[in-house]
């Protein structure tokens, strides 16, 4: 009897491994192995034709912490995440609620919200560049109608990062809206009716019924938004290139600069590993929290 169940367990495990293997192989090839190579690279010094690379231990990491740009970039990214994540998640919920409500031209509205997701970033960022042009640009033309003076959105350190944040929120909210829309479909409509009968207004319904029901989705989108706040930097290349004077430089953009503009792979690798550790920590936390909160049947 024991043998039989052990045999079954082993067959069970083998089956699991087989199912997992194609994904694992690809992940190893394109994610794990390169990451390990990156880790090794972060421990070596920068090699040139004249001075070959030598083992440098944690020196690259120390250099990073000593660099004043490091502090600027980290603060920028933290601020950037602190604003874009809640705003895009909140907006996504509002959009989903509206896209789900009984309003005329609902299909067009949904399409409008999803449009930014479908435009390639090259095109979208260039369009926004012309939105932000001082005086001439679309934004300043409209505010000019109300007599407001033109603002150099991308060209001053005070507004550059916020201008970039706006583009991010614009691009991401529609993306997250889809998740909320899907989740909203699973909420039975009689709940709303029942709340109405009990005398609860829309806001109370939203707060007491809708939000708790949507919590798993919210958590999930939240972590996604957090990851994207580190990962998505394509618009920076076109909008500000991290300027003026590092005012809008984000971590991944700096990594890119170090690796491909400065030809400095070891420092880029070190920063990559740091970011990986930080986000990895966030992932583990999210995984644990989600597991506890979601009731699996």
């Amino acid at each position: 009897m024991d043998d039989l169940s052990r045999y079954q367990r082993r067959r069970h495990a083998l089956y699991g491994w087989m199912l997992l293997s194609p994904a694992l192989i690809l992940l190893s090839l394109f994610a794990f192995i390169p990451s390990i190579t990156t880790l090794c690279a972060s421990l070596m010094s920068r090699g040139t034709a004249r001075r070959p690379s030598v083992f440098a231990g944690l020196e690259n990491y120390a250099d990073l912490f000593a660099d004043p740009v490091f502090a600027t970039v980290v603060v920028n990214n933290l601020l950037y995440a602190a604003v874009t994540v809640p705003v895009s998640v909140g907006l996504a919920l509002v959009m989903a609620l509206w896209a789900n409500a009984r309003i005329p031209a609902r299909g067009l509205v949904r399409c409008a919200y999803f449009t930014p997701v479908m435009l390639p970033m090259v095109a979208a960022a260039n369009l926004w560049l012309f939105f932000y042009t001082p005086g001439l640009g679309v934004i300043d033309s409209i505010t000019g109608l109300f007599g407001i003076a033109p603002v150099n959105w991308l060209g001053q350190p005070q507004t550059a990062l916020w201008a970039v944040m706006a583009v991010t929120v614009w691009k991401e909210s529609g993306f997250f809206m889809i998740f909320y829309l899907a989740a909203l479909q699973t909420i039975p409509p009689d709940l709303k009716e029942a709340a109405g009968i009990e005398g609860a207004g829309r806001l109370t319904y939203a707060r007491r019924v809708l939000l708790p029901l949507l919590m798993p989705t919210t958590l999930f989108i939240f972590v996604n938004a957090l990851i994207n706040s580190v990962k998505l930097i394509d618009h920076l290349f076109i909008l500000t290139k991290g300027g003026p004077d590092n005012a809008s430089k984000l971590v991944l953009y700096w990594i890119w600069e170090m690796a491909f503009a400065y030809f400095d792979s070891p420092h880029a690798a070190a920063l990559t590993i740091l970011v990986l550790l930080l986000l990895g920590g966030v992932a583990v936390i999210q995984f644990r929290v989600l597991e506890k909160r979601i009731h699996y049947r």
Partner: protein
Amino acid sequence: MKKILTAAALATGLMTAAATPAAAAADQSKTELTMYYPISVGGPLTKVIDGMIEGFQSEHPDVTVKAVYAGNYDDTRVRALSALKSGEKVQLSVLFSIDAYDLVEQGLVLPFEDVVKTDEDKAWLKSFYPALMANSHVDGKTWGIPFQRSTIVMYYNKDMFRAAGLDPEKPPATWDEMVAAGKKLTKDGHYGLMVPSTGYPYWMFQCFAIQNGKELMSADGRHVSFDDPAVIDALSFWRSLATEHKIMPEGAIEWGTLRQAFVQGQTAMMWHTTGNLTAVKNEAKFDFGVAELPAHKQPGSPTGGGNFYLFKNASAKERDASLALIRYMTAPERAAQWSIATGYVGISPASYETDALKAYGREFPQALVARDQLKVAIAEFSTWETARVREALSNAVQAALTGRQSPEAALKAAQTTADKLLKPYR
């Protein structure tokens, strides 16, 4: 159910078959070259390059060339680096002229002295404008051959000049004249002058510095003079155009939209790359002129753009073929063709003697200004560790122009950073 599965399997199989590349038949007798090139001024220019390549291949039937459009200068650099590190076959590329120091340091490129053999080749090596060769020299050798080169010129709106009572055929030739003209032109919501400070701030700053008599870097790429009083004065002057003389808007002026601002009449004068010439010509609905940049202690303007580089890991036969290709692409006829199509400068005096460029220059004399300015042109900012040093300078310029730091403090900080970076090379 089974049908669905089989259909899905079939579809996947077909897709994968369509996706994997067919085995390429290797032709041993032909030399195969791969070349990456960037497109930095907009337009359907890949077709022009393709045409040139075809012309080359018909003259050299034993060579096939794969010219790969690789994005902008940054993308092309990434591409070249990745290819070389992974052992992909690539023999030559057009890369940023200022990448020379880094490419040499990484041991990726060959000096042309090692490849030119015949007297004809050596003469060809000397046939380019000296100003354009300045960025190619590292440690006494030539590492890059000019291909798409530009310089900064001043575009100005002749109609606005006329309206302000200025002579449209006499653009300002000195700083003082420019400020005076700018003051007359700044009215009704229009500015007199715009000099972009995003995109390539260090490049624009070189103009001010050289016009105030100082080159920002030494010829050997080991020293920079950011904190020289003349350089600080140059940056203060740039800042004063917005704060004191009020002929320029405050803050950083965006590179990517400046041409639009000029073409729509938001500014009467703009300093910009000659690479914009064709676009401005097509878009401006007004009479516009192109002038050399105004002088102060002396005239001057930096060059810019891309050079041909030869990569080390190429066989002898491939090197010879590459040299032939480069000679073809930089021959006067092709240089003229490329200059007319893009607005880049003709790279050799001979190119301006071709019928095509002569005719073009006659009907469109603005195109010749950049060439005339080559007499006083200087190399684009480039040193060892060039990207980091350049970044320090660009940040200083932007800090000063946005009022975050005084020009003196900003440049002194940049000098400290640069010295630290360059110390190992001295």
